[in-house]
């Protein structure tokens, strides 16, 4: 008797599990709709190009893949969003001909040398994806909110816990702030968004944010949300909440302007793209390496400083002609005006400034076979 009842219970359970697995698998493989097509520039490319890396680029990569494959029907491009670390690992091991990474290659763990060895020359690094991280909030009756980096740090570090705190009121004259406690929402999974957000806070206001740059939320306070969608859902469904997320996902939520110098800047793609123009290059890099040390402390007018930058990593030369052509073709499309516009429309990223795009196009055009 026990045996039959056992089976009766197991079968629906197993079915539920199988369904769940299928569903989540489908979600990951979901492609973002169609993109503008390259008009008639049939280049005769064919083959399969498989890269991968930073998951932050996934939405943009999907848009680029769709656009590129439409222009080149014989080409299949894959982008595996396995994470920045995995992407760099696969690239230096020769598994990916190109990779996406939220941070540039360094020699802290020998990755830069390994990549140079794999490529037989200096690797190419292009900041192809720049996206503002917005501070989103949900407070009834507050349509506009100005925050300084210090106040943001104190809110997320659980030091400012009430919306009517004088430090917030001082920045928002004429705004009726409720006397309610703040629920600060953060990512509960490890993420590049958290890394960039905490890097900004740790660089600009190290006293108010003593935890430095971390991928995993460092303190036991506030509310956690799983993924960007989880944070947005928690901020939306909660009351008197504040959180941080990719600006394109903010939806109808309130978005705070961040103090830069004497003014407050909203997280528009244009304002985010400007940070690359005011930031210095990493020293000692060759011309093909466009690695930036983001200048979070800038007080240049109109620059939104909380951004996520992601790089494309590739080689200057490839062993076989087909791979070289495919990488060159795909990367050209990404850094082209059209490619950057497609990503801006579909993923909410900031198009590269014309001078940087020009430089990137020149670098990509030089890709060749050995």
């Amino acid at each position, binding site marked *: *008797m*026990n045996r*039959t*009842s*056992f089976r*009766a*219970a197991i079968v*629906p*359970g197993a*079915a*539920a*599990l199988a*369904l*769940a697995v299928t*569903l*989540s698998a489908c*979600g990951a493989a979901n492609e973002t709709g169609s993109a503008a097509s390259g008009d008639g520039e049939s280049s005769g490319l064919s083959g399969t190009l498989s890269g991968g890396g930073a*998951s932050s680029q996934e939405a943009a990569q999907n848009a680029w893949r769709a656009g590129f494959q439409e222009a080149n029907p014989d080409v299949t491009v894959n982008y595996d969003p*396995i*994470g*920045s*670390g*995995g992407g760099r*690992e696969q690239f230096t091991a020769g598994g990916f001909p190109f990779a996406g990474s939220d941070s540039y290659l360094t020699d802290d763990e020998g990755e830069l040398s390994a990549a140079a060895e794999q490529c037989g020359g200096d690797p190419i690094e292009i900041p192809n994806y720049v996206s503002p991280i917005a501070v989103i909030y949900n407070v009834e009756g507050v349509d506009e909110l100005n925050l300084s980096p210090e106040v943001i740090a104190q809110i997320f570090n659980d030091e400012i816990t009430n919306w009517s705190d004088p430090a917030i009121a001082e920045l928002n004259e004429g705004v009726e702030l409720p006397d309610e*406690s703040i*629920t600060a*929402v953060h990512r*509960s*999974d*490890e*993420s*590049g968004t958290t890394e960039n957000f905490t890097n900004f806070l740790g660089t600009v206001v190290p006293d108010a944010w003593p935890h430095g740059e971390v*991928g*995993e*939320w*460092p*303190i*036991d*306070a*506030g*509310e*956690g*949300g*799983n993924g960007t969608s*989880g944070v947005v*859902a*928690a901020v939306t*469904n*909660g*009351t*008197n*909440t504040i959180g941080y997320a990719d600006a394109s996902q903010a939806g109808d939520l309130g978005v705070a302007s961040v103090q830069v110098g004497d003014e407050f800047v909203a997280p528009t793609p244009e304002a985010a793209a400007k940070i690359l123009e005011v930031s210095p290059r990493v020293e000692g890099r060759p011309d093909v390496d466009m690695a930036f040390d983001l200048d979070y402390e800038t007080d240049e007018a109109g620059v939104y400083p909380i951004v996520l930058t992601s790089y494309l990593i590739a080689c200057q030369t490839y062993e076989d002609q087909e791979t070289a052509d495919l990488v060159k073709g795909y990367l050209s499309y990404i850094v082209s005006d059209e490619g950057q516009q497609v990503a801006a429309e579909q993923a909410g990223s900031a198009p590269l400034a014309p001078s940087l795009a020009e430089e990137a196009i020149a670098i990509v055009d030089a890709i060749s076979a050995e």
Partner: protein
Amino acid sequence: MTAVQLERPTTSRRGDAVFKALATAAAVLILVALAGVAVFLTLEGMPALQAEPGALGGKDNIVLYVWPLVFGTLLAAFLAILMAAPLSIGLALVISHYAPRRLAKPIGYLIDLLAAVPSVVYGLWGIEFLGPRLGTSYGWLEDNLGFLPFFEGPASGSGRTILTASVVLAVMALPIITAICREIFSQTPTLHQEAALALGATRWEMIRMTVFPYGRSGMISAVMLGLGRALGETMAVAMVLSATGVVTFNLISSVNPSTIAANIALGFPEASGIKVNVLIFSGLVLFLITFVVNFLGRLIAARGQIKEGR
């Protein structure tokens, strides 16, 4: 007649041998798979013992890292079973003994249907529907029962607390427990039941005297299976629970302990190197917990049966 008797055993013996071999192979295969998982978890988890604080989210050693997760896992599963077990047993009784047959069947099917809902859907339901609605009642709990450590607050506005996660887990465990209990209750010997009724027992007394003692070990098995589901559930908890890695009995604030399974799901996509070992080690701990819980369940069930056997 003798010829027939001689012939039959030979044919059936071959069938016996084949069936026995198949059954044994199935049993061995399961054991090998289980052993394989255990070996993998142990080998891959061991390097975590030497992990530096950098890979442990700032905790000094692996024990301090895993302990809040173990606490959260047990707390969430315990609360879920506390809600699901009485509800399921009541539901099973309604289906097997109280409801008219015309009604009992569809109710049974509906409950089974709950088991077929994917856990992401439960997660979405918890985060978008259940959480915000429970959130308002948490404010009431904080105001009126705030003197209890469980309802200390501050109440979470979005309702994504361990209590909400437990309610979701309870709904997920419910169909499993109900299905098994229903089967067991309906197999109580009719003679026992009629005898009890003939002695003048009311329906409730009859159930207490015949159905419960008869189904006791099965009920415990059912609850254990439900508990297994609650312990190991990943997706729904990862989505619903606002996990921050503390150890607290406060059930209604937005600061909650995470569970092992949810923590693996949240940490794995961006993990590399020793961090993967740390996550696998926590998986090993969950494996052992499930093992111990099942073992205890079997022990209790076995004891109950000895009493019945007297």
